[in-house]
């Protein structure tokens, strides 16, 4: 059984769900998983790395250096003789993976939606052109390095590793994170949420996003997304933009309000589980990918939908 090293991000003493999904991806290919964690609280969080046979905590400088950590993870991959490296396709994972790949002199794969065994090695399936096509890829390199798209793989339902060994980060830091300004609120990120409610130019002005926020709040586990048009108008931050030049999301439920469904927007959300569209134009392209559509005025429909969702949630 080939080994896969999974870089696990953690907060508050627990491995993040996105990283648990990356372990799930490795496990789905039958690999033996070694979790690698960095930073304060790593040894505590390691126990929650469900599906990992063992954990290795990186120790050293208190401030994070992407290049020094990438070098240390590379050492672990080599000393464990692993044939794969995975991380979540989060900021951190996407930043580290190509650095590690360069150390190993292999070509990395971002945002994978499938991870399969192929002899001693692995194969991945990943989007090209923001998901307009899907490529199945293997490697002739010694280690397959990849990041896993959020919300695609299932975490392993099982125990975490019982102990955590240590590996020192020894490479000199070239770039160092000197401060982090935490987010004002603990808002869910669009590519992490299981429900995304997105608004577009049809909402007419920034203040009307209250409708979308209220609907997201009614669902409870939802994030607010946006089309590029409203990000360009400065109604919403770029972090919420869904599409080819924003984030690619695959929630269980995607609700598009007043969004026409331009090809660049569809690229970012068409693999969502269920798509609902609310648009006053029955000919809007968004209806072509929607499972359920309501034609009409968002200002009338969305408040009614919010109340109805609240009523359902109150019952359950």
């Amino acid at each position: 059984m080939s080994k896969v090293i999974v870089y696990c991000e953690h907060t508050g003493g627990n491995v993040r769900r996105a990283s648990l999904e990356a372990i799930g991806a490795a496990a789905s290919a039958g690999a033996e998983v070694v979790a690698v964690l960095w930073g304060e609280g790593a040894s505590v969080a390691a126990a929650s790395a469900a599906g990992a046979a063992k954990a290795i905590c990186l120790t050293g400088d208190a401030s994070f250096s992407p290049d020094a950590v990438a070098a240390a993870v590379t050492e672990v991959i080599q000393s464990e003789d692993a044939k794969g490296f995975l991380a979540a396709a989060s900021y951190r994972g996407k930043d580290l993976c190509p650095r590690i790949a360069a150390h190993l002199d292999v070509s990395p794969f971002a945002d994978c939606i499938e991870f399969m065994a192929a002899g001693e090695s692995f194969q991945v399936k990943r989007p090209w052109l923001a998901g307009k096509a899907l490529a199945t890829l293997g490697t002739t390199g010694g280690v397959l390095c990849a990041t896993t798209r959020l919300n695609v793989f299932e975490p392993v339902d099982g125990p975490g590793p019982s102990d955590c060994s240590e590996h020192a980060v020894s490479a000199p830091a070239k770039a160092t994170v000197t401060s982090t300004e935490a987010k004002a609120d603990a808002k869910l990120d669009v590519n992490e949420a299981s429900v995304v409610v997105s608004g577009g130019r049809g909402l007419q002005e920034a203040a009307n996003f209250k409708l979308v926020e209220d609907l997201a709040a009614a669902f409870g586990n939802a994030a607010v997304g946006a089309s590029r048009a409203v990000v360009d108008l400065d109604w919403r931050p770029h972090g919420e933009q869904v599409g080819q030049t924003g984030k690619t999301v695959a929630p269980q439920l995607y609700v598009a309000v007043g969004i026409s469904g331009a090809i660049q927007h569809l690229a970012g959300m068409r693999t969502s589980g269920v798509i609902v569209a609310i648009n006053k134009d029955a000919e809007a392209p968004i209806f072509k990918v929607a499972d359920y559509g309501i034609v009409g005025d968002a200002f009338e429909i969305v408040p009614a939908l919010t109340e109805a969702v609240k009523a359902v949630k109150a019952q359950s």
Partner: protein
Amino acid sequence: MNIVACVKRVPTTEAVAKPAADGKGLDASEFQYMISFYDKIAVEQAVQTKEAAGSGEVTVLTLGPSSGTKEIRECLAKGGDKAVVLTDDDWQSRDARSTAKALVAQLSAMNADVVFMGRVATDRDNAAVGPMVATYLGWPCVTDVIGLEIADGKGSAKVETDAGIETVEFQLPAVITCQKGLNEPRTAGLKGIMAAKKKPLEELAPEAIENQSDVIEVALPPARKEGRIVGEGAAAVPALIDALQNEAQVL
């Protein structure tokens, strides 16, 4: 300052994907091309960095087809001083490693203080070449930068991560990959367009490096199941709730 902006010619975002006949790539016959969205931000940042320093030179570096000079001239019209094109008509099928290594071979001879790239090229979406180039060169790299200050051989960058806004400090030379929000790319004026025609554009053959990533199959994503309009106006809300609860079971 010696500044390099790396750009890639990619299919426009309107492009429709069609697998090639052999199923190992995309049929490019109907593609129109553009400089990748984020690479335009990289060019702008390079020009602004030179302007702030008061002197220096911006080289636009690309690996692409010999016929792709129109898009490269556009970068020169927006303030690049000269261009180096590593010509490879098969540029679209290069993997991240072979592209990075060809750029590294060129950059090693260029003596740059800072190299700007887009955060991701909007064709293969790997977001890999910037951090790979930096790693091969042994340079610091900051990815997805939304704020940047460079002075006295040092830099400080802001990036948005899942945790919040991080400040990252580093020494030059460095590779910076640019995220939307870092700047507003300028449009080229007539004067710039005229001047660009006379700016030096050097074509070189890149090192031949075999791909490591092995394309097994390229296919279209499975078509979505046919959907339906559940009704019109607020009156349709109960039907939608019913469908979400009982049919789709997501509520």
